[in-house]
């Protein structure tokens, strides 16, 4: 099978971006929306075709899924050995990601036709969506870590552009900047990690980097720095980039604010695709993590575990529905990271890897669904706050059902897809690290609780006073909801363990009921507690909040992480580093330049008199000069 056409999967959105960007303003906005969606449909169909060909039509007799370089071209030739290529690499995870990205992107495109209807900058929105799709697809099919880095930054740029889409709102601008700066800071670690890695290994290429039999795996361990091997350092730094993009604690602060962007953007970028780029990055370099730097992998696991718990606690107290979903996203990505952290390599040891990818897949579906449904709710109510919602199930039946499905999925209730993927993660954690396992149990309960808190608050309870009667969204918006709801319900039955595994070899996995049943029970308890608290307005939740006053306050204020950051940046970094640096720049650097200028200025105004144009002065200088010269010559002559 020749896969070289796959190069068009990322290129088509790029062409669309350029086209829509150039024609925005000259063609009707509606048309550009349709063009963008049509292009995305083609891309999606191509991805599905690739996935089908890759997974179900592989050459007879081959046990494993080979890594296929479908397309490769040298872009920069640094040295004979070290060159930067651009290309398309197909392996189980990249093909899986292609499917995820194009599906969610297509759904978001369709949904946006309705959601963004009549907004200013409609065609700009679609061109940015295309830019994002291009960068994200380029990221997942990257053949080498440098291409990935380039696309990684492009993804960051499009995220920035889309968060600040409503650039007239100062909060949106601030949120965009915050997202950009925080992820940029994290990407610094990524870049240093890349440099270290290429220094140790002499290559950027994924295929040779992640070859478990290759020599590179053992190379880095010989060099050490501060007690850790250079390879560990490189991988920890690379993980820092991934943590920034995936909003892992403590680099998560940008994600809640990123909800300032339009809701479809939140669904696409900040829930389903971009934020899992960090997970994908670790998964991509997984053999390196396992064999060369198990310490780094432990860090990954613990960062994931802490983030998932941390975010789940915060999500329980937030009132802005998009923020609840944002923290839920963080929590779920923490799950994926944790799953990677507790994974080994090869068949059943690689359960965590498989579970992580599986969860990534299902999470993309149900989280996109949640966001799009939240968008439909916001569209109907014109508010983000669940305190201003209630009893919406009568008005928004389709949204209600799909939202409920999504909540059940994320709560891990069988037979929805979230149950399967979460169960695999729990199993992997049980086999590897009991501490993380119990964290995950707690998080599972919290997840069920906060999701159903949201659900009951929005769809049950008393009617609020609405400006106009909320009405169901048009089909162009509910269609994607229904599609994604179906995906959330049924993707759990995909036999992931025979498709996407750490060593590309299928293995058997089955549900561990000893672990699954308590997890279901915890989920159900969470749901029941939420129901008890929030189905009718009975004041229990307020009493609980009063009882756990401090915890509630801390959680409500997101554990004051923003304040900590502000303190660190404003008080410590600005005062102690930036101010002196600015002072140095202003007084020493600029001062030198200004000094040169003013010395020149003063000198020239001093010697300006020499150029008076007055012959007599010239004459005086000339004659004096001649006299001095003659005197000097004579003096030398006679001595």
């Amino acid at each position, binding site marked *: 099978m020749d896969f070289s056409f796959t190069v068009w999967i990322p290129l088509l959105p790029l062409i669309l971006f350029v086209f829509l960007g150039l024609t925005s303003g000259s063609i009707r906005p509606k048309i550009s929306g349709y063009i963008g969606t049509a292009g995305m449909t083609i891309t999606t169909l191509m991805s599905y075709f690739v996935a089908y060909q890759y997974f179900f039509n592989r050459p007879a007799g081959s046990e494993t899924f080979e890594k296929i370089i479908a397309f490769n071209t040298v872009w920069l030739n640094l040295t004979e050995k070290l060159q930067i290529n651009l290309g398309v690499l197909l392996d189980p995870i990249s093909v899986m990601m292609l499917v995820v990205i194009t599906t969610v992107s297509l759904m978001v495109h369709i949904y946006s036709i309705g959601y963004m209807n009549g907004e200013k900058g409609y065609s700009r929105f679609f061109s940015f969506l295309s830019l994002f799709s291009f960068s994200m697809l380029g990221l997942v099919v990257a053949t080498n870590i440098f291409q990935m880095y380039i696309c990684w930054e492009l993804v960051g740029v499009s995220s920035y552009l889309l968060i600040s889409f409503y650039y007239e709102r100062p909060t949106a601008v601030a949120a965009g900047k915050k997202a950009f700066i925080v992820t940029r800071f994290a990407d610094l670690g990524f870049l240093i990690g890349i440099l270290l890695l290429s220094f140790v290994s002499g290559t950027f290429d994924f295929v040779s980097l992640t070859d478990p039999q290759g020599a590179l795996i053992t190379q880095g361990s010989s060099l050490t720095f501060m007690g850790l091997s250079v390879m560990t350092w490189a991988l920890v730094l690379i993980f820092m980039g991934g943590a920034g993009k995936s909003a892992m604690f403590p680099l998560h602060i940008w994600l809640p604010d990123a909800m300032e962007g339009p809701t479809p953007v939140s669904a696409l970028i900040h829930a389903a695709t971009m934020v899992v780029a960090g997970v994908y990055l670790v998964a991509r370099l997984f053999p390196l993590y396992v064999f060369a730097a198990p310490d780094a992998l432990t860090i990954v696991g613990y960062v994931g575990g802490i983030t998932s718990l941390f975010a789940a606690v915060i999500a329980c107290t937030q009132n802005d529905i998009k923020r609840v979903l944002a923290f839920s996203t963080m929590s779920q990505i923490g799950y994926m990271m944790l799953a990677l952290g507790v994974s080994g390599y090869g068949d059943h040891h690689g359960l965590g890897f498989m579970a992580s990818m599986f969860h990534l897949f299902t999470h993309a579906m149900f989280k996109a669904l949640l966001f799009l449904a939240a968008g439909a709710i916001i569209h109907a109510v014109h508010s983000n706050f669940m305190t201003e919602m209630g009893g919406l199930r009568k008005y928004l039946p389709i949204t209600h059902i799909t939202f409920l499905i999504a909540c059940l999925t994320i709560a891990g209730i069988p037979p929805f897809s979230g149950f399967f993927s979460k169960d695999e993660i729990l199993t992997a954690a049980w086999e590897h690290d009991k501490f993380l396992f119990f964290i995950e149990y707690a998080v599972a309960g919290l997840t069920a609780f906060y999701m159903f808190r949201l659900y009951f608050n929005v769809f049950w309870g008393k009617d609020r006073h609405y400006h106009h009667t909320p009405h169901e969204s048009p089909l162009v918006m509910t269609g994607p909801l229904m599609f994604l709801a179906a995906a959330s319900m049924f993707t759990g039955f995909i036999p992931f363990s025979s498709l996407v595994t750490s060593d590309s070899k299928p293995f058997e996995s089955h549900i561990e009921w000893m672990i699954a049943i308590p997890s279901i029970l915890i989920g159900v308890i969470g749901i029941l507690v939420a129901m008890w608290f929030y189905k009718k307005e009975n004041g229990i939740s307020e009493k609980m909040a009063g009882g756990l006053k401090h915890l509630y306050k801390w959680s409500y204020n997101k554990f004051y992480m923003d304040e900590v950051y502000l303190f660190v940046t404003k008080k410590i970094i600005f005062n102690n580093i930036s101010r002196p640096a600015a002072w140095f720049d202003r007084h020493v650097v600029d001062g030198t330049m200004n000094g040169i200028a003013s010395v020149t200025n003063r000198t020239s105004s001093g010697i300006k008199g020499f150029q008076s144009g007055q012959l007599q002065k010239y004459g*005086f200088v000339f*004659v*004096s000069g001649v*006299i001095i010269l*003659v*005197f000097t010559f*004579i003096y030398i002559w006679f001595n």
Partner: protein
Amino acid sequence: MTISEIIFYLFSATIIFFSILTVTSRRILRAAVYLLFVLVSTAGLYFMLNYHFLAAVQLTLYAGGIVVLIIFSILLTSHISQKFEPVGIKKQIFSAIAMAAGAILSIMVILNYGFNSLITVADNPTMNTIGYGLLNYGKNGYALPFEVISILLLAAMFASIVIAKKDKKTN
């Protein structure tokens, strides 16, 4: 002290004294007259050196021609009674110092150089010699510079007329 020495010292003193007055006098017409004295004294020196023709030319051309020309132009451009503003003291001092240094330097050089003076004959070149010299193109002939000077004089005459002519446009 011979009579010639006395005459020489007289002329020299006149030259230097009136030179100084020429360049320092604040009345321009007086300066011109002092210049005339200097030029006449110079002619006297030429007489002493037995170049009578040259002395005559000096008197007629310089003292008679150029000085008169200068006086004319003074009368055209200034009031006779007009006094110049005094020159800036700084400028005066610096120039004086520089010139004194130059003069001292030159005089030192002159005094240190042993000139090999051959005073054998002090004959006055006759008009014939001078005429032959000017029109001769052989050895000791100056026909070429003579012609060049005549062309230069012609050019200068044209130039003066063209420059000094009133510009029709500006009127």
